[in-house]
């Protein structure tokens, strides 16, 4: 449920870093806590985001929750398929349900994120 190759933050996002670009989404724990996701509010391509800063909103039937950037950089891609069908985030949060891709400003920030084991400890899983 928490793939080893991903990095995690304490606000329940994950990042998958490849060639200075991080794909970002929410964790299985987060999607499960939220329940049925019905709406995504995501930034436009080109938006600058800061590690720990809010970059969008994931909304379930019950409530809206902010999502926070795990890493600093510029949004270079937004998952339009998930915007059109937010249930992808419930069904495949680490795959088809990714949210944005961020071009990293400072790749060394990745060191601040948790490993899968650390994140599992953090949520008590």
């Amino acid at each position, binding site marked *: 449920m928490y793939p080893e190759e991903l990095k995690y933050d304490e606000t329940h996002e994950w990042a998958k870093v490849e060639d200075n670009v991080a794909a970002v989404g929410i964790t299985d724990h987060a999607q499960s806590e939220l329940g*049925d996701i*019905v709406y995504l509010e995501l930034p436009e391509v080109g938006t600058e985001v800061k590690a720990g800063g809010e970059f969008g909103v994931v909304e379930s*039937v*019950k*409530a*809206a929750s902010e999502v926070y950037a795990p890493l600093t950089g510029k949004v270079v891609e937004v998952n339009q398929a998930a915007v059109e069908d937010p249930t992808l985030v419930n069904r495949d949060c680490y795959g088809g349900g990714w949210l944005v891709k961020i071009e990293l400003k400072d790749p060394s920030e990745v060191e601040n994120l948790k490993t899968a084991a650390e994140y599992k400890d953090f949520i008590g899983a």
Partner: protein
Amino acid sequence: MSKPIDTPLYDRHVSLGAKMVEFAGFVMPVQYTGIIDEHVTVRENAGIFDLSHMGEIFVSGKGAPAALNNLVTNDVEKLKIGKALYTPMCTPEAGIVDDILVYRDGDEKYMLVVNASNIKQDYKWIVGHMPKGLEIADRSFDIALVAVQGPQSEAIVGEAVAQDMGELRYYEFENAVIDDIPVRVSRTGYTGEDGFEVYVDAARAGEVWDALFDLTNGIGGVPVGLGARDTLRLEMKYCLYGNDIDETTTPLEAGIGWTVKFDKAGFVGKAPLEKQREQGLKRKLAGFVMVDAGVPRHGFEIIDVDGKRIGGVTSGSYSPSLGDNIGLGYLDVPHDEFGTEILVDVRKKPRLARVVETPFLKLLGGK
């Protein structure tokens, strides 16, 4: 706030995998399989709900009908024994203290079912506004409540009580037994579907839940949490106390004027309601559907196309039946007219919505 209270069915919810939350001082299931699945299953088949957080206050004694009639806007003196009635209970200024169900048990005997968040204040209010000599008892913790709602509910409840429920009409109730346990079965609900609410001694609630759960589960029905209860009622524009109605809103503004009987003798709140009726309403609770993306939520502001504030959202959600985002809100007259375009301030972004006729979902509403 004191420690939240578990209902008698707490262990069953946990073993069913429910997500538990605190609501109105109680630990309640908010969802089991998922809000959308639970919602759709109630509309198409059946769902079972633990509503043991609701309060039950008993009023009896000589003069009870007239005394109670003075406290509520609907007419409980005309109410027949064996029937239930929905009514607001108002302040002298016509704000809503609570919206309740009144069951008539006898000539001078009633059971009031009140919102969980209001149990203590309602009891105090009722005692404070009733003549001495009446017996008023809060039995909320002695009584559990299990609801079965949906098109298959008649078959489920009928089998549980081993009798044909076809004769029991909407808003009627009767005493029955489930596996020799005495229950009160009422054809009422908060979903817009045909459905039943089953009152039982809290000590026997587990057995009654198990019997109804097995029958519900056996035909593909599901347990339903507070999340889907909210989306089901919202599609019907049934008011939620604390969200859509409270002491700052009147029954006329809330669109439940049919519960205000101006032709009966005086009642608390009558004069300001008469005045409001004569002078016309300044604002009304209206339903709207989002045209733009975005989910309206309680507390969001509503503005007109020129940017002037014209109201606020009281309830809003994705509607599983319609596939649209819907909401309720008080709108300054005449912005409440069907077809009016309004803007909902969704996190500082104005999003277009359109006022529509309610209920959002056209159902027959039981038997």
